[in-house]
């Protein structure tokens, strides 16, 4: 009797588990389809000839419709290798500057109390509200004065200035939720403020840094406006500008247009995994050496601290007794 009851309950919960799982996968797979269908469609059709593109847009390229004429046109007419290396140089350099300088500023704002702290914070995130494009004319004049027109450096500087506010905003928000104990413990261990930043704070905020990197990267890689105004020369053209001008020239040649779109898409797909992967890797500060306080006095204070404060500490770091259990995760 009790046996059947419990097995019934088990079966019921298992059934619920299965139906939930089906629903979850249904929604996710359904939306995934919507997200990638247009992209797949363009790539498929880029391998067809003109007749194939129009008579059977949804079909796979096959006999009679398969053709590489679009790619031939693109590769002979456009200089996509240069465009790509330009985009890459600009994006990577600007991202590095945004993350490094942004995290440093956010750390200062979140960690220290000094005069004008709030004011500087507001000043730095002002740029979120103010699209940097609103100052385009002044930026152009400035670049002319600095002799930076038609250089990648001009783009890097503008994109760094553009990306900093969002980075500082998100990182400051996040750094305020970091447990203070871990930093204070490092101070007790005698680390300088710079080492605390680079060796304690940066590892802690790595997942958020990755997220910020992704968000800052998108507008830079995709921007059309500043390449057009500041660096439209052949040697400094970015992919977005290159593709845009190419499409403008070849609007009637559908295979060439689809091929150029595909060429612009493919490296993005290739970069996708490395870009997204680190964002969600869970990290454990407990693994890092030299961060956990060794003094019994500190340990005691941490413990009393942890029991007296209502907040939950960052994944058990506050309590040294938990370390062994954490390491396996």
């Amino acid at each position: 009797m009790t046996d059947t009851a419990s097995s019934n309950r088990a079966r019921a919960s298992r059934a619920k588990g299965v139906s939930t799982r089906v629903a979850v996968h249904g929604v996710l797979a359904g939306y995934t389809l919507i997200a990638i269908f247009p992209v797949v469609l363009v790539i498929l059709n880029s391998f067809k000839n003109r007749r194939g593109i129009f008579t059977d847009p949804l079909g796979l390229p096959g006999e009679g419709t398969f053709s590489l004429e679009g790619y031939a046109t693109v590769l002979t007419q456009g200089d996509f290798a240069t465009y790509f290396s330009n985009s890459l140089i600009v994006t990577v350099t600007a991202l590095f500057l945004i993350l490094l300088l942004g995290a440093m500023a956010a750390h200062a704002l979140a960690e220290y109390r000094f005069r004008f702290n709030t004011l500087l914070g507001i000043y730095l995130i002002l740029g979120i509200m103010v699209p940097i494009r609103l100052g385009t004319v002044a930026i152009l004049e400035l670049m002319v004065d600095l002799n930076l027109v038609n250089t990648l450096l001009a783009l890097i500087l503008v994109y760094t200035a553009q990306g900093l506010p969002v980075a500082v905003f998100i990182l400051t928000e996040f750094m305020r939720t970091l447990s203070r104990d871990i930093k204070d413990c490092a101070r007790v261990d005698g680390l300088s403020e710079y080492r605390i930043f680079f060796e304690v704070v940066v590892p802690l905020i790595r997942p958020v840094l990755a997220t910020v990197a992704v968000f800052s990267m998108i507008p830079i890689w995709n921007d059309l406006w500043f390449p057009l105004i500041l660096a439209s020369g052949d040697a400094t053209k970015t992919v977005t500008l290159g593709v845009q001008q190419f499409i403008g020239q070849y609007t009637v040649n559908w295979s060439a247009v689809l091929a150029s779109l595909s060429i612009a898409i493919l490296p993005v797909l290739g970069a996708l995994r490395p870009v997204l992967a680190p964002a969600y890797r869970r990290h454990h500060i407990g693994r890092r050496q030299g961060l956990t306080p060794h003094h019994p006095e500190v340990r005691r204070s941490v413990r009393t601290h942890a029991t007296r404060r209502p907040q939950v500490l960052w994944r058990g770091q506050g309590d040294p007794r938990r370390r062994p259990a954490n390491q396996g995760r």
Partner: protein
Amino acid sequence: MSDPTTDKPEGVPTRPAGRRKRRRAAGAHIFVFLAPALLIYTVFSIYPLIESLRLSLFDGLEDGTAVWAGLDNYATLLFDPNWATQFWRAFWNNLVLFFIHMVVQNPLGLLLAALLSLAPRFGSAYRTLIFVPTLLSVVIVGFIWELILSPLWGVSETLLGTIGLAWLYQPWLGLESSALATVSLISVWQYVGIPMMLIYAALLSIPDELIDAARVDGLGGWSIFWKVKLPLILPTLGIVAILTYIGNFTVSFDLIYSIQGSLGAPNFSTDVMGTLLFRTFFGQQLQVGDTHMGATIASMMFFIILVGVTIYLALVQRRLQRYEM
């Protein structure tokens, strides 16, 4: 990296419970942390903006010099019938755009993030693929959708036909009644990955201990989501909302410009503040570029965004509770 002698270890942290006290100011390292960011940001972002605000208070003469005009440019923009119709129409279109993003993009992002946080199989594959459109350039996205929705190619008509809805098909991008909504949905399609990622990261940062505690207390999956997780990620939802509001005035330009051109075709039905600014600033077929009116529109956008952000900071942000997790 620095000399450790200047950083005397402070007393063991035994501050009263619940009070968050920041460290006292101590010299050079604060300056070192802040200076590089402040310098680049001030020179390339704030100074050009101030310059543009200044330009909006002047009027250009034929010979290229500028004279003080006070608020005349603003009066022209808001009350001169030639400008006012364009301005208010663009402003209204921006509000519609914002509304569609708030009711479609952000709930969709929350739903996807919540489902992903259940760690289903292939979770990272879903996440990656859903994020693909976000990484694409607006030029590409605009062109892809132009092709797909084009009656010339007929892909969307064929697709609707397979589910028996071919009669529903219209050239949505070309109709005044549907162009703005269509462009908004294309933008949602492209950018839903951003709220999804932000919310997903926030959901992941919730400590397992809290969820376990809720489960021990007898809460089910739904209750845990609504009563534990959602309150904890409210600050993130606030960030998403305000980023949507701001992006709506800035980013929307790119997509509309690349699909509908700087005139907000058809018949200005997708004209937003960004396209109006671009048109005014750089001119178009029948109109010479006007630096000072352009600067005025740019400044108006600045004030509109300022109002929204002030409301957010004063009303929303202040009431949100942050938890140390």
